[in-house]
C-alpha cells in the first residue's frame, strides 16, 4: 500500500519485507510443486515479488523492479533480447509523446481555459457542478490520460471548494471515479487501454465504436450513484454558491486565455491518432505504427517550435519514474509469457470456467476488477494480458479484451490504491490539506461504484454481443 504519510518507519519496514519475501517464496514453492520449470518458477516468484513491492513498498517499487529484472537476467530466466522485446518500448514512447504534448498544452493555457469555462459558468448549482465534473473528468481522461485529467480536475475542485469553504473530498472522489471510468473510453485514456489495444491489435476507432458507448453508459450509472451518495454535500455546495452569487462574487479570477493554438494541437493530435488505421493502410506500414508514432511526431514538432523549453518538457513533464517501472513490469510479465506460465494459467482458467465466452466475460471483468482494486491496474493487466491472449486465440472471440479493459478501469475505483489516478489525486489532497481519506471511507462508495459499473459493462457486452454480434 502506498505510504501516503511519507517514508515508512523502519519498524514498519521489516514486517512488510517479511511478507514480500515470504509471499514470493510461497509462490515459487507452489510453482515448483505444480511441476513448473526452473525459469517458470523464478519468473512467477519475481513477478509476485514486484507486485507485493508495489503494495508494501510503494516508494521503492522501481528499485525492487530493477533488482527483479537483474535477478531474472542473472538466472537466465530472461535474456537481454527478450527483455528488450517485452519491455514494450512502443507503449513507453507513446506515453512519452503524450506527456510532452500535454506539458505543452498546459503551458499554452488549454487547461486554464477549460477550468475557467467551468468557474465562469452562470447559474452554477451543486448538481450542475457535479455533472460537469463527472463528464469533464471522463472526457479529459479520454482525450489526454487519466493522470493528466485528475491533476487538472483536482485543481478545479480545490479552487471551487476553497472559495466556497467546503470539504473537497466528496467532489475529488467523484472526479477520480469519473476519470477512471472515462479512461476506458479511448486508447489514450489509460496505459491499460494502449497496452490492450497494442496487444489485441485494436484500433482507435474500435475503441470509439465499442468501448466509448459502454463507458458513457457506465458513467451515467455512476453519476446517479454518486449524486445519491453525496446528496448532502451537493446541497451544501448549491447553498454556498447561491450565497456567493448573492454577494456578486465569482469562483475565481477569469483572464483572457489565448487557447486556440492549444485546442488546435489537441484536436489535430486526436484526429491523427483517430485516423491511424486509415493512414497505416495507405502508407502500408504495420498495424498501430501511426498510433504509436503520432504523439511522438507531434511532441517532436512542438519541441522544435518551443525549442527553448524542450529540455524542460522531457525532464519535467515526462514521468520517467512511472515509465521505467512500467518497462520493468512489462518485461517481467513478458517473461511469464515466454516461459509459458501464462499459458498454464490460461489452461487452468478454461479448465475451471470452461470455454463459454458468456461465462468467461463476467469472470474476467470481476477478476480483473477485484485484482485491479488491490494492485495497480497496469500491473494486473500486464500479467493478465497473455492469459487473455491465449483465451482469445483459442476461442476466437475478442470480447474478452473489452472485459479485461472495463474490469481494469472500473475496478480501479474500488479502493484508493486501485489506479494511478487515485494515488496522484490523494497525494495532491494530502499535500494541500494535510489530510487523508480512510481506506474504508473510500471502499464504501468505491466498491459500490466499481461493482455497479462492472456489472453495467458486463450487461452492455452481453447486449452488444446479442445486438451487434460482437
Amino acid at each position, binding site marked *: 500500500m502506498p505510504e501516503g504519510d511519507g517514508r515508512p518507519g523502519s519498524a514498519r519496514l521489516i514486517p512488510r519485507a517479511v511478507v514480500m519475501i515470504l509471499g514470493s517464496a510461497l509462490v515459487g514453492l507452489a510453482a515448483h510443486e505444480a511441476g513448473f520449470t526452473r525459469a517458470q518458477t523464478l519468473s512467477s516468484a519475481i513477478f509476485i515479488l514486484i507486485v507485493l513491492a508495489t503494495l508494501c513498498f510503494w516508494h521503492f517499487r522501481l528499485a525492487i523492479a530493477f533488482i527483479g529484472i537483474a535477478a531474472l537476467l542473472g538466472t537466465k530466466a530472461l535474456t537481454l533480447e527478450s527483455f528488450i522485446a517485452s519491455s514494450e518500448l512502443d507503449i513507453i514512447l507513446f506515453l512519452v509523446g503524450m506527456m510532452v504534448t500535454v506539458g505543452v498544452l498546459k*503551458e499554452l493555457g488549454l487547461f486554464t481555459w477549460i477550468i475557467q469555462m467551468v468557474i465562469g459558468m452562470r447559474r452554477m448549482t451543486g448538481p450542475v457542478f457535479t455533472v460537469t465534473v463527472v463528464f469533464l473528468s471522463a472526457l479529459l481522461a479520454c482525450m489526454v490520460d487519466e493522470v493528466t485529467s485528475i491533476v487538472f480536475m483536482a485543481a478545479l475542485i480545490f479552487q471551487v471548494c476553497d472559495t466556497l469553504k467546503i470539504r473537497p473530498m466528496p467532489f475529488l472522489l467523484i472526479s477520480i471515479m469519473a476519470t477512471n471510468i472515462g479512461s476506458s473510453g479511448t486508447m489514450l485514456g489509460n496505459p491499460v487501454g494502449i497496452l490492450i489495444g497494442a496487444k489485441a491489435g485494436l484500433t482507435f476507432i474500435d475503441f470509439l465504436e465499442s468501448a466509448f458507448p459502454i463507458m458513457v453508459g457506465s458513467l451515467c450509472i455512476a453519476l446517479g450513484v454518486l449524486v445519491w451518495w453525496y446528496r448532502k454535500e451537493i446541497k451544501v455546495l448549491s447553498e454556498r454558491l447561491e450565497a456567493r452569487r448573492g454577494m456578486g462574487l465569482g469562483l475565481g479570477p477569469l483572464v483572457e486565455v489565448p487557447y486556440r493554438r492549444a485546442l488546435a494541437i489537441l484536436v489535430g493530435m486526436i484526429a491523427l491518432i483517430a485516423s491511424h488505421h486509415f493512414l497505416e493502410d495507405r502508407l502500408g506500414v504495420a498495424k498501430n505504427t501511426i498510433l504509436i508514432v503520432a504523439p511522438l511526431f507531434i511532441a517532436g514538432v512542438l519541441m522544435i517550435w518551443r525549442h527553448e523549453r524542450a529540455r524542460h518538457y522531457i525532464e519535467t513533464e515526462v514521468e520517467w519514474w512511472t515509465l521505467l517501472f512500467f518497462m520493468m513490469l512489462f518485461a517481467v510479465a513478458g517473461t511469464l509469457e515466454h516461459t509459458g506460465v501464462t499459458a498454464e494459467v490460461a489452461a487452468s482458467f478454461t479448465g475451471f470456467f470452461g470455454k463459454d465466452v458468456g461465462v468467461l466475460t463476467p469472470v474476467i471483468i470481476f477478476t480483473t476488477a477485484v485484482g485491479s482494486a488491490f494492485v495497480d491496474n497496469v500491473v494486473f493487466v500486464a500479467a493478465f494480458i497473455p492469459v487473455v491472449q491465449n483465451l482469445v486465440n483459442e476461442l476466437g472471440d475478442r470480447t474478452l479484451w473489452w472485459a479485461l479493459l472495463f474490469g481494469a478501469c472500473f475496478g480501479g475505483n474500488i479502493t484508493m490504491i486501485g489506479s494511478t489516478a487515485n494515488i496522484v489525486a490523494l497525494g495532491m489532497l494530502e499535500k494541500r490539506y494535510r489530510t487523508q481519506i480512510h481506506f474504508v471511507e473510500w471502499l464504501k462508495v468505491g466498491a459500490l461504484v466499481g461493482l455497479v459499473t462492472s456489472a453495467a459493462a458486463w450487461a452492455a457486452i452481453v447486449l452488444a454481443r446479442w445486438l451487434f454480434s460482437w
Partner: protein
Amino acid sequence: MSERTSPQTAGAAESGIDFASLFGPDEVLCHTGTTDRDTLLREILQLLAYQRGIGNVDEALAAVLERERAAATIVAPGIAVPHARLGAVDRLVVGIATSTRGIVFKPGSAPVKLVILVLAPRDAPGAYVQALSSLAKICGDPQTPDKVAGLESAQDVHRFFERGGMALPDHLCAADIMDRDMVTLQETATLQDAIDRFVRHDLIDLPVVDADGDLVGVVSAYELLRVCLPDYILWMEDLSPILNFEPFAEVLRNESSTWLAEIMSYEYATVSAQAPAVEVAKEMTKQRAREVYVLRGKRLVGTITLQDFLRVVLRE
C-alpha cells in the same frame, strides 16, 4: 509592531534565585549626580569591575552602548534596564543607579530615575529576559521610579529589591518573549481592511480574532496572491493575459464586500503563554512558521516572530 522594550510578565515557575541576590549594596550608586547616560553607564561598569571583575570596562561599555543604539532600553516610564552579554562574566551581574534629578537616556523621552544595568554571560541565551521578567512587578507600578529614587541609602535600595519578592523564572516562557503590541483583524473585517493593514504595517501575516479576542485564523499576503493567481492561471507559460494584473482587478473591485475568509488560513503555529520559550522554536521549526501565536486558552495574547525570537533569546 513595537520594539520589545516593555516589561514582560513571568509565566513560568520561579527558580528561587532572588533578583536582589544578583547584587549587593556596594553595587548601588544612590542619588547619582550624573545626568548623562554614557557617563553614568561607565560609572556603574567601573563600580562592577571593582566589585565583581567584569573584564575591560571600555569593552563592556561599548557592548552596552551598542545595544542601547539598537533601541533604548527604557522598559517603563522612569526605568531603564541597559544590558549586554559579555564573555568576561560567568553569571548574571547587576549594578543599580538612582537619581532624583533624572538621567537623559533617550532624547525626547522623560528622564530616567532608576537604572538597572544587567550583564549576562555571552553563552546564556535569554538570561537578560529572565532577569527582566523578574522585574515585571515593580516595572508595572508607575510609582516605582520615584519611590526607589527617594530612598536614602544603597542599603535601602537593596532592601527594596529584597522585599519585593522578585525571583528569576526557572526558564523563559512564551509569554516572556512575546510581543503584546500586535496588529489584529476582527473576523468581521473585509479583504480591504486586510490589504490596508498589510501595507500600513508592513506585515505579511495578520491574526484574525473574534469578538472575545479568540484566534480564529490568520490571513496572509501570500494567500491573497494565491487567490489572485490560482493554480490554473499559473500553469500558463505565457503571461501576456495577466501582464497588467488582470486577476487582481476583480479582487480590487470586490475587496470591500469580500469575506476575510477568502484569504484566511487555518494552519498556523500556536503555543500556550505558559509554554517554555523553547517550545516556540520547536513549533517554528516543525511547521516552518515565521510567526507563532501565543494563546491563553483560546485568547490571542501575543505574537512571536522569528526575528523577535532570535533577537530576544540569542542577542538580548
